[in-house]
């Protein structure tokens, strides 16, 4: 077996699980800031009560994000010592900056936001929501920039011992790939948060409880949901895809399951990649669209996997293909759902349209799936490299940590995270059952 297998599985499991929480908190931080701002400008308690409810949901998710985030930082050293030694002089910068600039901001002001309302007053509490928004989005920036270096290394030079050194700090920190990836990622977090807020509004509306808050949640969720679902596709997703086409053509070919090169490249709507036969089985395709989306013209030649030696192909073409198609397919559905909901909202009929409310209520898991599939696409597309074109994943592990140890800790995480997940569902369910009534008390 691939000696890196357990290390990869452990990182994949812990990072996928971890990102279930920040993808909500980063998006929700923006929506809470919107609610706090509305509360400050319009006066009264209604928007503040709504914000207070979401801050409680935020607090539980944030705690989960913190505790599942701690293992991520450590794993660079414990399991990926080869990567740390090779690229630590470069990616260590963003990881350390995140700690010093973003974590302190978040951790200091979360306590103020969750428990300090009576101590700091209305404006102070609004400011805490701003600081938390800034902290969490800054945190996301440095993490995405770290990943962007692995996807498209810039600003580095080769050091004396063969490892990488940072040659241009600003080129590294303003990596164009990373800025595109950041915009796309953050819009993705807003989609998750919008769908969650709208889903709870729909739930309360269908149950005819907390009816006024249900209207507020639906208004905020659907408005933000339409804007962010649109922005995920265009311009951010479109731009990201063009960068992949330009800099990772093998990844693009594998994402589309494109085994043969040629002009008028089709996009595949559905079909099963058959690596052995080098074709898509049962394809449903639209000719020319891939050429247009990747390069702006229908006739452009788009390289397929046949142009590249097989040892440079992503090692799991099938999973990469499905991850990408699930992301794009769901993203398209999100736009349709939110556009329809927005029309009903604008006409004042959303709260009475039970069919639409059912759809919104049941839709909230899908942005989680789409965000996860998006990251799977990015990470599987980068294979077989951990630092694209420079360091192979199999050379990046800690050389002396044997599979027995790696599997031991993976099993430990599986058990611990199962318990955490059950606790999380239990606590969130209590908050939802309690609902956003006025006052800070809950049981």
């Amino acid at each position, binding site marked *: 077996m691939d000696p890196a297998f357990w290390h990869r599985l452990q990182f994949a499991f812990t990072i996928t699980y971890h990102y279930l929480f920040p993808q909500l908190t980063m998006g929700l931080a923006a929506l809470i800031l919107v609610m706090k701002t509305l509360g400050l400008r319009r006066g009264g308690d209604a928007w503040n009560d709504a914000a207070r409810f979401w801050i409680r949901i935020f607090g539980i998710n944030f705690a989960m994000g913190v505790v599942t985030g701690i293992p991520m930082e450590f794993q660079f050293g414990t399991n990926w010592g080869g990567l740390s*030694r090779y690229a630590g002089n470069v990616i260590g910068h963003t990881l*350390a900056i995140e700690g010093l600039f973003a974590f302190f901001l978040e951790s200091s002001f979360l306590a*103020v936001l969750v428990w300090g309302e009576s101590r700091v007053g209305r404006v102070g509490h609004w400011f805490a929501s701003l600081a938390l928004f800034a902290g969490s989005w800054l945190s996301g920036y440095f993490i995405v920039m770290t990943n962007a270096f692995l996807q498209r290394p810039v600003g580095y030079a080769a050091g004396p011992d063969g490892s990488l050194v940072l040659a241009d700090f600003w080129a590294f920190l303003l990596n164009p790939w990373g800025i595109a990836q950041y915009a796309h990622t953050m819009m993705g977090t807003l989609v998750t948060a919008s769908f969650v807020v709208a889903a709870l509004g729909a739930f309360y509306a269908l149950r005819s409880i907390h009816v006024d808050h249900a209207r507020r949640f639906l208004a905020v969720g659907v408005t933000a949901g339409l804007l962010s679902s649109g922005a995920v596709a265009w311009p951010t997703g479109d731009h990201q895809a063009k960068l992949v086409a330009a800099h990772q053509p093998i990844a693009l070919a594998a994402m589309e399951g494109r085994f043969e090169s040629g002009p008028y490249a089709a996009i595949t709507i559905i079909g099963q990649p058959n690596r052995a036969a080098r074709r898509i089985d049962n394809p449903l395709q639209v000719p020319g669209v891939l050429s247009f989306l990747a390069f702006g013209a229908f006739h452009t030649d788009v390289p397929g996997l046949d142009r590249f030696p097989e040892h440079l192909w992503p090692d799991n073409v099938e999973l990469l293909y499905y991850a990408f198609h699930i992301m794009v397919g769901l993203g398209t559905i999100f736009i349709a759902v939110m556009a329809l909901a927005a029309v009903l909202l604008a006409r004042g009929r959303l709260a009475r349209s039970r069919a639409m409310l059912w759809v919104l209520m049941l839709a909230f898991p899908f942005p989680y799936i789409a965000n996860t599939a998006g990251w799977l696409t990015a990470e599987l597309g980068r294979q077989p490299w951990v630092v694209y074109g420079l360091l192979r994943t199999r050379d990046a592990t800690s050389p002396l940590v044997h599979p027995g140890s790696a599997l031991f800790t993976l099993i430990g995480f599986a058990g611990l995270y199962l318990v955490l997940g059950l606790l999380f569902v239990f606590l969130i369910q209590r908050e939802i059952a309690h609902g956003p009534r006025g006052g800070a008390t809950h049981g």
Partner: protein
Amino acid sequence: MAELWYAILAVMLALYVVLDGYDLGAGALHLAVARNDPERRTVLAAIGPFWDANEVWLLASGGVLFVAFPRALAAGLSGFYLAIFLVIWCLVLRAVAIEFRSHVAEPLWRNFWDVVLAGASGLLPVLFGAAFGNLIRGVPLGREGWFELTLFTSFLPREPVGILDWYTVLAGVFALVALLGHGAAFLTWRTEGPVQERSRRLAFVLYVVLAVLWPLVTLATHAVNPSLLAALPGRPLGWLGLALALGGVVGALVATRRGRPLAAFLGSSAFIAGMLIATAACLFPVLLRATSGPAWSITAFNGGSTTSGLRTALGWWVVGFPVALLYFVILFRIHRGKARAAAEGEGY
């Protein structure tokens, strides 16, 4: 430049141990000093707003180690693999205990998390102390700059070494006593009533135990790594650290007796910071000591840093470090004064 970053790393780690040390100590002690739910909530109100920010110093120190000495980070974290994951799991459980305990007003739920908090908070100082013991004793670094340690072998500090042996366990117990005392001093300062009184009594006992253990640990250290104390005469910072530590422990004892809780807490902080500064000064420039001989040790000079990279890092560090301190001051000001148990549903 490498010297400067060694010092930065030492200062940030010392800050981490002083700051997270009091909430670890308080968490480990709370079953003893807080006997009922309102008292436990008082302890949690004292550490609740701070623990997360305090813990960030650990992650920030890790980040600095990553960027400044990546070879040391890669070798150290992978070499202590199992111990590192024990630390991670304790950190996770402890955070969950603090954050989720007060969500449900159910005695069984709360008792469960209280025990989890005490257990994880108590195990962490032992593991941290044992980690320092390993740095002092040395690890079996190979030619390629990697090592692998099992959790234990024969419990003797000689080849083949394990992470735990009598010396590193002793270092762990020493660290536990120091942080328990530190936590008790913090609770004496930040609480009132019965919790304060119990904490004050415990703090005094713990500092007496610490003062007894200190010479023993020093002797053991000399037996395990003679070069450490031998380096002391030429290291003025080492003397300064030792003086700080000695003044701190005496000050903590005297101030606890005289009922001056803030002075006692500062004394206990001085002891911890002084010990860490003295150790770092005597270890310099070694980051990971090789048991096979000094040639294979990972030091500040062969730890993988480059002068240009460290200069770049200094550029953001001089901005970020004061900003982080500023957040800390704001946080302390917002939550100043004696901690009181929050109303049900309103706080930790």
